[in-house]
């Protein structure tokens, strides 16, 4: 079979599977997103209350919802803002669909090679998920912090809003897909390099 046809069939199958499994996947991944978000929140006056999959308030399927509190200072007893962020479950499964389709549909000389790729891919994939969906969920907390800070003193050029906003915009404008593709290619290269080293040893 020609590579183009193999790619087209693998993509069609992956998109169909992704559409069917978007909600279960988001439920499965929610604790991981919550763990990453809590880790990031430690460096900020933020507290993550919940990351869960719920029905979309607009009645269009389900969304991954983060509820968090933002304080002016970490030592403040009471939060200054309650933040709710929503990401569609279909968007959350984009990265896994692109990444794993590329990794598993790429020609391999043996089943063993595929297993090495899957093992290396799992590690790279966890990093990609943290950089994409987990950080996308935190976007509004950074915005709330910046707004609170702006309320007490003039915004600085290194306002946290700028960096988070730039990253969020990059992901929304196709950067998430490109990141998943580049991550997939990096995982392939890394796995193949490990395979070559083991054969040489």
């Amino acid at each position, binding site marked *: 079979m020609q590579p183009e046809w193999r790619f087209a069939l693998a993509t069609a199958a992956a998109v169909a599977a992704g559409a069917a499994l978007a909600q279960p996947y988001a439920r499965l991944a929610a604790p991981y997103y919550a763990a990453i978000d809590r880790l990031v929140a430690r460096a900020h006056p933020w507290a993550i209350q919940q990351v869960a999959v719920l029905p979309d308030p607009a009645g269009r399927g389900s969304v991954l919802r983060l509820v968090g509190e933002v304080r002016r200072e970490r030592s403040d007893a009471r939060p200054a803002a309650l933040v709710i962020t929503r990401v*569609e479950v279909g968007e959350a499964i984009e990265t896994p669909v692109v990444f794993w389709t590329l990794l598993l549909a790429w020609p391999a000389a043996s089943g063993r090679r595929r297993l090495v790729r899957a093992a290396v891919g799992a590690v790279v994939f966890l990093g990609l998920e943290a950089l994409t969906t987990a950080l996308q969920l935190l976007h509004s907390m950074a915005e709330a912090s910046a707004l609170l800070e702006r309320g007490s003193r003039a915004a600085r050029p290194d306002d946290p809003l700028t960096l988070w906003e730039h990253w969020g915009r990059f992901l929304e404008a196709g950067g998430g897909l490109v990141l998943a593709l580049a991550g997939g290619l990096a995982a392939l290269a890394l796995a193949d390099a490990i395979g070559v080293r083991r054969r040489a040893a």
Partner: protein
Amino acid sequence: MNPTPLAFGLRLLVLFAVLAGGFEASRGTAFERWLVEDAILAPTVAIIDAVTPAEHAVLLGRTITAPGGPGLHVTRGCEGIELFLMLAAAIAAFPARLERRLQGLAIGALLAYGLSVLRLMALYYTLRHSPAAWEALHGLVLPLGPVALMALYFLRWSSAKSQLQAAQPAARAA
């Protein structure tokens, strides 16, 4: 010589970030408004009204709206610009002669434009007539489908380019 997958992936990521950053910097300018509103959204609404005159769709700012239902508000990442930027980054990341790159970009731009308009039409009809399918279509199928088709186009372009390169030394040897 074709680049390694890792080198290609890194070049693609960096070039896409540069192109997307450049386009992001143009947000709010007359060029960006012309590109998104006049060149993409207005023709989309015109086609919707031509195909389904009963819709009476109109463009209000960046929202495709019609009586008796929700309007489609087109935000960042939904206009289809990223399709062209991805292709441009991929073609720039792959070694080829300038004329070959320009040819690939010109045909690819037309394809990206057509796919963007079709995607917006599909989103509009889904929102209006089949909101239950919105989750799967808006979040996954309609963003990835056009990207997959663009990727197929890129694969054809890059493999044709490789065949051309392989044929040239053979022709010279003959």
